């Protein structure tokens, strides 16, 4: 019983939050100097985090494991504190305003969930294709580059591009145009044009990727935004009573 009380006190404490954030910060600082110095981190862009962590020696990854451990404890701390706070505030006026810090915290937890899902199940693959080139997706869908259009200025800078594509899967056909910041999405998979070359022949570097955490990251981001804007509005309203009129 005494241990349970101690555990509850630990997870319900703001001091725990401060301690965990300070530890996380310290590990991020270490990582910020370890990461650029070690080539192993170049691979981290192409495989899920946990797969990469399993392949690398602990001498390279210890600080990332430490961050993951701290984030796990921070998640529990956030859940405990948010639950306690919501229970205490349930009868207050201006409920949405009052619980805005908890909305921020829930948004933060969704973002952590998104990173966890992507760290476990992200997928990324690259390939070069020219006009008429065909890419077969893991589920059998066929993606064909029908045209690569490149606009250059007088100095030869590529100022714009577009790529016309045909997608065929299960007897259905779909035409689309890929643009900068406009990829092609199909059944949870995104196809991106990462680079375009006009000479000596028109070619594109394609990326096929899946980020399982995207939806949760978006939900988390929206909740975080709503919460933090409400929090700022609440603080300003409370501190500047003249704004209430």
């Amino acid at each position: 019983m005494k241990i349970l009380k101690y555990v509850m006190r630990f997870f319900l404490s703001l001091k725990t939050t401060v301690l965990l954030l300070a530890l996380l910060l310290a590990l991020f600082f270490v990582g910020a100097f370890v990461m650029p110095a070690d080539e192993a981190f170049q691979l981290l862009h192409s495989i899920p985090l946990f797969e990469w962590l399993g392949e690398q020696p602990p001498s390279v990854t210890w600080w990332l494991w430490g961050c993951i451990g701290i984030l796990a404890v921070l998640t529990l701390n956030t859940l405990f504190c948010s639950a306690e706070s919501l229970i205490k505030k349930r009868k207050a006026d201006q409920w949405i305003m009052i619980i805005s810090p908890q909305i921020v915290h829930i948004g933060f937890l969704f973002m952590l969930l998104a990173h966890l899902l992507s760290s476990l199940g992200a997928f990324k693959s690259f390939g070069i294709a020219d006009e008429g080139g065909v890419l077969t997706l893991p589920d059998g869908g066929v993606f064909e580059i029908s045209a690569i259009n490149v606009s250059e200025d007088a100095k030869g800078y590529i100022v714009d591009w577009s790529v016309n594509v045909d997608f065929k899967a299960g007897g259905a056909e779909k035409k689309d145009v890929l643009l900068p910041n406009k990829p092609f999405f199909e059944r949870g998979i995104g196809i991106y044009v990462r680079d375009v070359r006009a000479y000596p022949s028109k070619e594109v570097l394609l990326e096929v990727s899946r980020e399982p955490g995207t939806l949760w990251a978006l939900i988390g981001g929206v909740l975080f935004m709503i919460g933090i804007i409400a929090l700022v509005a609440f603080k300003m309203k409370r501190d500047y009573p003249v704004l209430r009129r």
Partner: protein
Amino acid sequence: MPMAYAACVLYLLSLWKRPFLYLGLAVQVAYIVSRGLELGRLPLIGPHDTLIFLSACVAAFSVPFGIALKKYPVFHKGVSAAAVIFVVAGVLSKQQNAPLPPVLKTLWFELHVVSAFLSYALFGIGAIIGLLYLKEKDDAIEGVQYRSLLVGYCLFSLSMIFGGVWAYLAWGTYWLWTPKELWTSIVWVFYSLYLHARFTKQWSGRPSSVLGVAGFAVVIFTYLGVSLLMKSSHTF
């Protein structure tokens, strides 16, 4: 460019008389608008344009915070000094006049960059107010510093979210493992730590105010140090 030089001189003069700060800000806004019209895009690429935008934001944000701190004219001296440093550094940096790469032609980029620099300016204002608090020891000043850093944190978080949406649309992931992203997380965790620590007995008052001042050093390293010294998605 003459307008940027004029803004330098006016900010320098504002160390003597405050109205020169507003005059400097007006000239600087005119310079930013003229650069935008000349380039046909938001002039926020590379150290020249971003430093000039940052100094203008610091000067602009000093207006509302100056009202709350009107008892302390030294606040404006701090703002003027910061504006001079940033605008001189901007003028000494090379302009980037090349057309925008196609991937940067999106509203997400504009939202990401503008909110980032607005937040940097508020973190800077928060650091100046923090120094003022450490000198004057008036708790009301610490409250103003908190508001500045809270709004800065809000804008910084928005910038990270906009950046994540943009990165997902451009590169298929909302998170890139580069030094810039890691340092951005350091800034975010640092101010999260400040916002939480301030409510504990041990950290309230002077210690949290010092944190608020130190945070700006991390911001400046993340903005300039990482972009200039390390290879990342944000290299100048």
